[in-house]
């Protein structure tokens, strides 16, 4: 078990390195392939009035003239050991873990990300709670009342739910509930949980519900399919033959079996969301990781893009790891050796 975790952790690090290398290569190579020189790249960092000479010096200082590997090495080293950025007026210390230093905002990326993280985590976890409960419950009921009116209605809604892009439902909900009925905030505001839990929840209510609706729809479908499959398993028949109450059969035996594949998907979904609910955050202008990513991309702030990509990948990797570990807990047949 311990060796398994260690092995997985090592693999996670390897995976993150690969992700970072690919990201790095793409963002540093593609502009060059398109003909940008190191001076062009430096020009964005030196202010509007810099002379050609200054740009050249800056390009040199920022290491844009070094080979890609050297640049990547520096970046990687920064994550472990921190880095110093000499941007002219002084040397800026970017302490470990240094996920890059934005020359546009003049801020290290990591504290920025840490700052945004609570928003995204609140958004993702809150929505996750709703969608898991709503989605799984609907799925189970649908499976049990298969073919009933409830089943057909729920599945139609679920199908509609998965067929609507979040920015569309998000906009519609904003127009209806925030601009129109004014019963929810229009996003953009975030109150930390510790400051005021009630406001925190109120601020996030609409994004939660919209996001959860989308996912709940998917999970309802998944759960229903899974339940239909497990309810056909022999062990369900055994449970019934024992004389168990139908509810016990469904929840303790059926659901337990149906939930494992959902767990995997849940891990991946949550991981991806924690790495930035890009569309939701930009629809509701929530200052989370996803919005940060969009903004960073908007201003082509490569260090920030790198940082946010890595953090996002990190969440997916960690979520996968946790799911795999959970799997071993849920399913005793899975042995982690």
């Amino acid at each position, binding site marked *: 078990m311990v060796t398994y975790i260690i092995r997985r952790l090592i693999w996670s690090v390897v995976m993150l390195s690969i992700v970072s290398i690919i990201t790095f290569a793409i963002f540093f190579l593609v502009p060059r392939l398109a003909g940008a020189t190191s001076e062009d790249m430096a020009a964005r960092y030196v*202010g509007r009035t810099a002379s050609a000479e200054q740009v050249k010096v800056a390009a040199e200082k920022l290491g844009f003239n070094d080979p890609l590997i050297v640049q990547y090495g520096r970046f990687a080293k920064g994550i472990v050991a921190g880095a110093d950025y000499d941007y002219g*007026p002084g040397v800026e210390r970017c302490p470990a873990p240094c996920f890059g230093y934005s020359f*546009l905002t003049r801020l290290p990326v990591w504290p920025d990300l840490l700052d945004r993280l609570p928003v995204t985590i609140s958004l993702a976890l809150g929505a996750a709670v709703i969608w898991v409960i709503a989605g799984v419950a609907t799925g189970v009921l649908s499976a049990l009342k298969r073919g009933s009116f409830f089943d057909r209605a729920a599945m139609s809604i679920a199908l509609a739910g998965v067929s609507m892009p979040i920015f569309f439902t998000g906009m519609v909900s904003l127009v209806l509930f925030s601009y129109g009925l004014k019963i929810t905030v229009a996003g953009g*505001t975030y109150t930390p949980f510790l400051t005021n839990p009630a406001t925190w929840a109120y601020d996030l209510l609409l994004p939660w519900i919209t996001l959860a609706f989308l996912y709940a729809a998917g999970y309802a479908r998944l759960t229903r399919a899974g339940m239909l499959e497990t309810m056909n398993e022999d062990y369900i028949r055994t449970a019934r033959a024992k004389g168990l109450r139908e509810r016990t059969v469904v929840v303790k035996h059926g659901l337990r079996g149906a939930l494992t594949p959902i767990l995997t998907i849940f891990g991946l979904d949550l991981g991806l969301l924690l790495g930035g609910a890009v569309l939701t955050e930009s629809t509701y202008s929530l200052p989370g990781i996803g919005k940060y990513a969009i903004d960073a991309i908007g201003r082509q702030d490569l260090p920030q893009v790198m940082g946010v990509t890595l953090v996002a990948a990190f969440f997916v990797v960690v979520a996968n790891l946790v799911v795999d570990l959970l799997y071993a807990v849920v399913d005793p047949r899975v042995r982690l050796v």
Partner: protein
Amino acid sequence: GGSTTTPTSSGAPAAGGATGEFNGALTAVVNPSDKKGGILKLANAGDWDSLDPGDTYYGYSWNFIRLYGRSLVMFKSAPGKTGNELTPDLAEGLGTPSDDAKTWTYKLKAGVKFEDGTPVTSKDVKYGVERSFDKEVFPDGYTYFNDFLNWPKDYKGAYKSPDANTDSAIETPDDQTIVFHLKQPLSNFDYFAQLPATIPVPKAKDTGAKYKEHVIATGPYKFDKNEIGKGFTLVRNDQWDPATDPNRKALPDGYDVATNVNADDIDNRVLAGDLDVDVTGTGVQPAALGRILPDPAVKAGTDNPTGTRLWYTSINGNVPPLDNLECRKAVEYAADKTALQTAWGGEFAGGQIATSLLPPSIPGHEDFNTWVPGADNKGDVTKAKEALTACGQPNGFETNISYRAERPKEKAAAEALQQSLGRVGIKLTLKPFPQTDYFALYAGKPGYAKDNKLGLAMNGWQSDWPDGFGFLQQIVDSRVIRETGGSSNVSVRDPEVDKLIDQAMEQTDPNSRNGIWTQIDKKVMDDAYILPNVWAKALLVRSKNATNVFVNDAYGMYDYLGMGVK
């Protein structure tokens, strides 16, 4: 032809006009009150470029910065034209010119202190200007001081040349006196002296690029919490002495500023009274227009000032066939200006159709229309075709038009141009670029623009202060064009214009000076290097809870110094 009338409330006196009416705050104070207390809630759909006085270049930021920083001179906090007048702030009086207006001297008031209690000296003012010199640290700021003061050769700013003797540029003979030395005569240096760069910065507390996280206040408010990207709060600065400051009423107990808020939500909340001000002062979003304009009751709570901003399209003479005047003329003629006006937001939220460069509120503005785009302003296809034929491109040509990807109005305007120029065979391809790099790397970089055939570029310019110099110099002087990129003038390259600018700067007589700016305006239009779109207007919403609301002409938006809360 565009009329120049500045919208004013027709006649009705606003004295005690607590209710307010449409455009009521343009000329009078709405909801006058002296009640202190309360928190003023502001929101910004985007974010400040910087809160650092040495680095900020947004109009609303200059308006707002007066709450926590005091510069040598400031615009009066008053409605109507008065707002355009300068008044001493840190200084005891306006500047005293000498040496043919090449030397300007200011005396500082006594008793002004930083928030930590240390007295403000002329050295702090000088340091503030010196540090702003470093455009690597402060990339956003203006370069007036860099360009006009008589700095020693190789001077690189307070950080990189800490030991340089800068007395040739700024002298501080004593703690209360500061003397500026210019390279060339400048007849109205007081406009320079109101720039935020003259807000004193204590050298001991300067943290360079990070100073924006906590600017040391000299005004009535200081920073409390500052979460970059989310917002900040200002609280009263107990070291601020009202006795030294006749300009500020300092009514609220504090300011609560949220940044990166949904723009439509800001409108709704201001309309509902949950929020006091949209701090950017750029007016409501298009969605709100439909709610405000048709409803007289709602409309009465709004103001529609004309700013000092021109939205325009640069026509790059470096990109063939636009190197030919006739081809540029074709663009001027073919453009559908009403479509452009709509694209920019229509009559109220967009602006007034512009026929020349200088906005109506700026001295030197004159009504003329060099290239009349048809009687209905929808473009003169016949004349455009004639011009094309004269240019040797009878079937039109292809070129690109750049705009800032994040700005839907620029996109709409570019699409409108694409549509109207398409009528005469000028085929435009839209090229969005990220706004951060728009000037540094793309449209403002001559080499790039030329290589990538950016024949047209969407552009906008707001006067740094309400005079011809403040408006025109940065966008028509070919000498500000930088090959390395970052120039705001991307198309006008006319030596005659440059010569005229020099004349205007030296001219001390305001009337002749304004005459020269008019001349420059006309010359640029004759060259057809610029296609003026609109002189921007903004539809501002007054909050029900705000008191003392009035538009300051210098900023073209509500004056944040005066405002209080009910």
